């Protein structure tokens, strides 16, 4: 017996009971949709994580921050020196496994003003030119300050696009890209010349969307513009912070803001932190041990500092992703299972309805096997139709989810998850059809013909 005819019979049978078949498929539809959407979400999270990780300087970056003195050293607390430039020079001289060192001295309560406009950037930090490499910054216009700017403590700064947008106007509002190189801005009461501007940082998803919008005619706005949550745009957190960074030369920061300007005019030489890059990310542990030894020496044995690796952060997030994957996988699995049971149930009902038909088919020469295949094919056809509908549903679902989630986490449907989900529904079709098909195939023709 021809497989094609069997499949056609299966379709006819399903079509004859459209509503019932649809209800039966619902479980499979939900299962497949949630499986694919779940994978898309996780994939989006992974994409976001990977991009964010690169944006903040990669895995081999380590931040040293000031920490409370441990309990057993409490009596030494007032002698704790904090992290200073001494540490930076000591590490530079004595820790060869550290490739790059960048000090960072942040300004408290940073305010930038220009012509009556004010902006509170996320961070204004005095640093070295190496901060560029350390934090994966790219200068798009102008230049980074150099050692000479630093030594002579020039009043120059490098800004990100967020500062430009706030003080000079963003490309979206002015319709052109303003490059404020050479302009002067006021940082906490001191005039600075902008000598460089970073490129605009954004996630891949964000860039794609922006480019798409650029190519489309501007939509006519009706009604008041609605805010879309914090920051007014959906730009991701990591990229937003990065865009609102202002760098000054280290010495400028020290002389203009720290050497005299403390609350009671006591100079404050402490850094907010320093950043390291190890020479070999495979040998992170020994490199950190080496740096720790150097710092213990400069800190007179007082452990008032801490190493923060990106690894612990990314570990944490990937663990969350794993948890999300497992829990949603279980949900998808359960709904697929329920869908399978639904199909089995409906197949049993269907063959009970068709006992006479099966008897007739056997009387005219259907073999046990051909009846078995016929019922099995019907079950598989239901499951596969459900699987297809599930894929379509998941596509719509992912579109909805994408509209709700931050740009860099935008869910992404993967071919592998679609294949997996579809394969699953085929498998469920087989599994659910097996018992009913066996029951139908084993029917005695005489009893089946006599059945009312």
């Amino acid at each position, binding site marked *: 017996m021809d497989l094609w005819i069997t499949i056609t019979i299966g379709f006819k049978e399903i079509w004859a009971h459209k509503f019932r078949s649809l209800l039966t498929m619902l479980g499979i539809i939900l299962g497949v949709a949630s499986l694919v959407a779940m994978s898309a979400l996780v994939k989006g999270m992974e994409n976001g994580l990977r991009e964010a990780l690169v944006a903040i300087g990669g895995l081999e970056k380590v931040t040293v921050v000031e920490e409370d003195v441990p309990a057993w050293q409490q009596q030494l607390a007032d002698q704790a020196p904090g992290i200073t430039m001494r540490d930076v020079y000591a590490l530079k001289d004595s820790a060869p496994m550290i490739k790059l060192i960048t000090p960072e001295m942040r300004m408290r309560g940073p305010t930038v003003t220009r012509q009556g406009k004010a902006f509170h950037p996320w961070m204004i930090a005095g640093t070295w030119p190496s901060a560029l490499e350390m934090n994966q910054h790219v200068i798009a216009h102008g230049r980074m300050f150099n050692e000479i700017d630093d030594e002579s403590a020039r009043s120059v700064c490098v800004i990100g696009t967020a500062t430009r947008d706030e003080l000079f106007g963003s490309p979206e509002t002015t319709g052109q890209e303003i490059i404020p190189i050479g302009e002067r801005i006021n940082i906490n009461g001191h005039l600075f010349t902008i000598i460089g501007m970073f490129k605009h940082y954004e996630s891949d998803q964000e860039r794609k969307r922006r480019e798409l919008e650029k190519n489309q005619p501007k939509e006519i706005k009706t009604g008041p513009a609605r805010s879309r949550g914090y920051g007014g745009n959906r730009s991701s957190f990591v990229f937003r912070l990065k865009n609102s960074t202002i760098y000054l030369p280290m010495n400028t920061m020290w002389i203009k803001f720290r050497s005299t300007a403390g609350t009671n005019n006591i100079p404050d030489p402490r850094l907010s932190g320093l950043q390291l890059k190890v020479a070999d990310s495979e040998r992170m542990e020994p490199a950190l041990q080496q740096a720790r030894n150097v710092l213990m020496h400069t800190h007179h044995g007082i452990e008032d500092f801490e190493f923060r690796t990106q690894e612990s952060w990314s570990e944490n997030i990937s663990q969350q992703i794993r948890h999300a994957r497992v829990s949603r996988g279980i949900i998808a699995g359960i709904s697929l299972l329920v869908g399978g049971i639904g199909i089995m149930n409906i197949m049993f009902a269907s063959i009970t309805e068709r006992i006479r038909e099966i*008897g*007739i088919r*056997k*009387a*005219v*020469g259907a*073999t046990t096997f*051909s009846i078995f295949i016929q019922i099995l094919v019907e079950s598989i056809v239901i499951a596969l139709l459900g699987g297809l509908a599930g894929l379509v549903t998941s596509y719509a679902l992912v579109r909805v989810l994408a509209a709700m989630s931050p740009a860099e986490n935008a869910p992404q449907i993967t071919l592998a998850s679609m294949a997996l989900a579809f394969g699953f529904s085929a498998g469920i079709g087989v599994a659910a059809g097996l018992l009913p098909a066996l029951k139908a195939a084993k029917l005695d023709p*005489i009893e089946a013909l006599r059945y009312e």
Partner: protein
Amino acid sequence: MSLVELRNVSKIYRVGDEEIRALDDVSLDIETGEFISIIGPSGSGKSTLMHILGCLDSPTHGTIRLDDTLIERASPAQLAAIRNQKIGFVFQFFNLLPKLSVAQNVELPMIYAGVSSRERRERAMAALKMVDLENRSKHRPMQLSGGQQQRVAIARALVNRPKIVFADEPTGNLDSHTGETILHLFRELSQQGRTIVLVTHDPEIAAVTPRRIEIRDGKISQTVDAKLAGLDRLSPTPAP
């Protein structure tokens, strides 16, 4: 050698403690080309006998040989093939598949025989022409009258060119006039040389066939041979 040889066949049903002998030591030969009726009162075992003859059911005791095949030795797949190729059934309640069209119903045995779709269509139309229904091929069975449905069932029974056709009360569900046209059809088919076994409880219908087998309580009580009874098997009108 006969087309069908039934030897000492019994069929015993056990319902609780009771034993029902639906067939009790029946022996019977059917030759190619015969037109036979099996007659008996209700519950006498006619259907049971026909089902066993038609390889739909298996006897409790005894042997059947159909066209040189020993039935109890055949595998289920072989039995399905025998039902498909060598036997045609016509039932009292037509037993057409309601979701299929008339033509598709007639094609059904050929589907299981693996006939190509073009040949299926041609042969189904030819069979429908034989029962005078070629203009109803696209109809559903429910859109036909009882007699027409039975003619479709006959077309289906003949379409695989079987060695023998079994009809169980083929007129039992029809009014007497329609029943007569169906009987006429069987007689014509018999005159074309087909082997036909007709099951009925109506002596008038049984009188149409040259050979009658009377069955009572599962036993063959009497066999009336046409030649012995002086009946002309080619007589154009039913015997009184």
